[in-house]
């Protein structure tokens, strides 16, 4: 203490007590609802009279729910990989562009993040539709006789989801690439490595934390992208968010909806933990 009258934390910090209002708010309106969700999931019937693990037994044995869950995670993985390819090339080119180009590019990357998801998804409905851009262009060149079915297909969904989530991938990658010491790439080239070898042996491994951060954000966003999944996937494809919504709203089956929400939540958390562990490992690897 510099002065005898001073009490509490040093002048550069604030007391943890400043977090109390938000902590109370979160306990009341975030933690308590989630705990209640766990409780509700242990009711055996929609009428909610007796307790048991029936909902979880149903999930494990109905042969449908686990399929939807697996398919949702698979969709997230496909989207993330495509997004990584686009995002890495974008970030790599961004850091090599002159300042003025970077300014414009940054606006182009950030703008979609703030534009309504409904608007962005709607644009993809227009692009992929029967009379959309892709079909018009292909027909114009005479490459197709009849319009291709792009909307309501898996491929269409993956491409549009990857684009809707692209900024989430590009931003951490740009940060990672900017932190990379350019001398390392120069040294690798000077020692005789080809550009490709430098890229795969130096650039990629050293930006691994950024890659994992981007993948985590993209993955989490694309598996819960309710609007895009329902508008571009259409009624034929069912993913966890819509499944939960149907069970809760149309069927009023709260215990089952609660149970599948929790299974989904745990699956997401497990994926997040894996990404975080890999991230920590890769950072340790770089520091070593």
């Amino acid at each position, binding site marked *: 203490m510099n002065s005898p009258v001073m009490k509490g934390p040093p*002048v*550069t*910090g604030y007391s*943890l*007590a*400043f*977090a109390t209002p*938000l*902590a109370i*708010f*979160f306990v009341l*309106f*975030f933690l*308590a*609802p989630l705990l209640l*969700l766990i409780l*509700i999931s242990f009711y055996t019937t929609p009428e909610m009279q007796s307790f048991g693990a029936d909902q979880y037994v149903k999930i494990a044995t109905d042969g449908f729910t686990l399929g939807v869950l697996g398919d949702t995670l698979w969709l997230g993985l496909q989207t993330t990989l495509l997004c990584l*390819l686009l995002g890495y090339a*974008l970030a*790599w*080119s961004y850091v*090599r562009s002159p300042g003025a180009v970077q300014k414009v590019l940054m*606006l*182009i990357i*950030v*703008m*979609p993040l*703030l*534009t*309504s*998801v*409904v*608007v*962005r998804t*709607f644009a993809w*409905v227009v*692009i992929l539709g029967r*009379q*959309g*851009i892709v079909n*018009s262009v292909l027909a114009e060149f005479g490459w197709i006789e009849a319009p291709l079915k792009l909307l309501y297909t898996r491929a269409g969904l993956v491409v549009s989801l990857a684009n809707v989530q*692209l900024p989430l991938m590009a*931003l951490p990658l*740009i*940060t990672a690439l900017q932190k990379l010491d350019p001398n390392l790439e120069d040294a690798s080239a000077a020692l*005789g490595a*080809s*550009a*490709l070898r430098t890229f795969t042996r130096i650039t990629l491994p050293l930006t691994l934390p950024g890659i994992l951060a981007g993948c985590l954000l993209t993955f989490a966003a694309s598996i*819960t992208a309710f609007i895009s999944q*329902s*508008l571009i996937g259409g009624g034929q494809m069912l993913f966890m*968010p819509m499944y*939960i*919504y149907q069970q809760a*709203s149309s069927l009023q089956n709260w215990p089952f909806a*609660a149970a599948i929400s*929790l299974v989904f*939540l745990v699956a*997401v958390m497990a994926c997040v933990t894996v990404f975080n562990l890999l991230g920590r490992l890769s950072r340790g690897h770089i520091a070593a």
Partner: protein
Amino acid sequence: MSTGRRHEASTIALTAVLGAIALIATLLLLAPTVVVIVLSFTNGYSLKFPPPGYSLRWYESLPGAFQLQYAALNSLKVASTSTLLAVVLGVGAAMAIARSEKAMARVLDSFFMSPLILPALAFGLASLIYFSRIGIELSLLTLVIGHAVVGVPYVIRTTVAALSQMPAALLESSASLGASRAYTFRRVTLPLIAPGIAAGAFICFMSSFDNVPVSLFLRDASTDMLPIRMWQDLEGRLDVSIAAVSSLMVLVTLVLMIVMERLTGISQRMR
């Protein structure tokens, strides 16, 4: 110097391949905005692109679209109120955890950030069950509470970043010159972190205005929200007037974004 030339060739090839993919990615980032704006001026009834002809008819239909206006007004009310709540609660929490070395601060940080990673739909359902069990009827208030929970992380993130970038020497000199903590906060800290708070508030507002998963569960039957109204209009019949609404939203977003970039350098704060 054949190896040198080979290296040059491989550098050019790598730059060309990655550059080409980057160009495609940039076009794909721009495409949705351009497509929506062009389509909104169509004179046709379908989402045919390119449009058969151009007119302002879908914009002219908006003043009569009362359902959309009502939904937009609700979204505006909820987004502004929940942002205000998130800023008041979030800035306090950010101050508490930003420069703290305590383990408790890290725990609180993860706790306050968790709505970002948790599936929002699961939280929406949990809140619906919670409010119905404790006997609070769904209303704009329940929407505001739900949106504030999922929006608070944005405020905390940008405010914590602004606080940790602030030189400690400033606070120490202010204190050593005899200023009280409250005075230092008002005259030194607040002006320096204001752009960070504003950026977080802006992101929080935009995400609330765009929220569907929480609103789906926490609105009552008579409270329509804009993104949900648009989504349902699109699912039922691919309605062209949605293109006009979307273009207006893109325009407003772009203007706000440029203003925020000037005032707070928002693109640097979204990383």
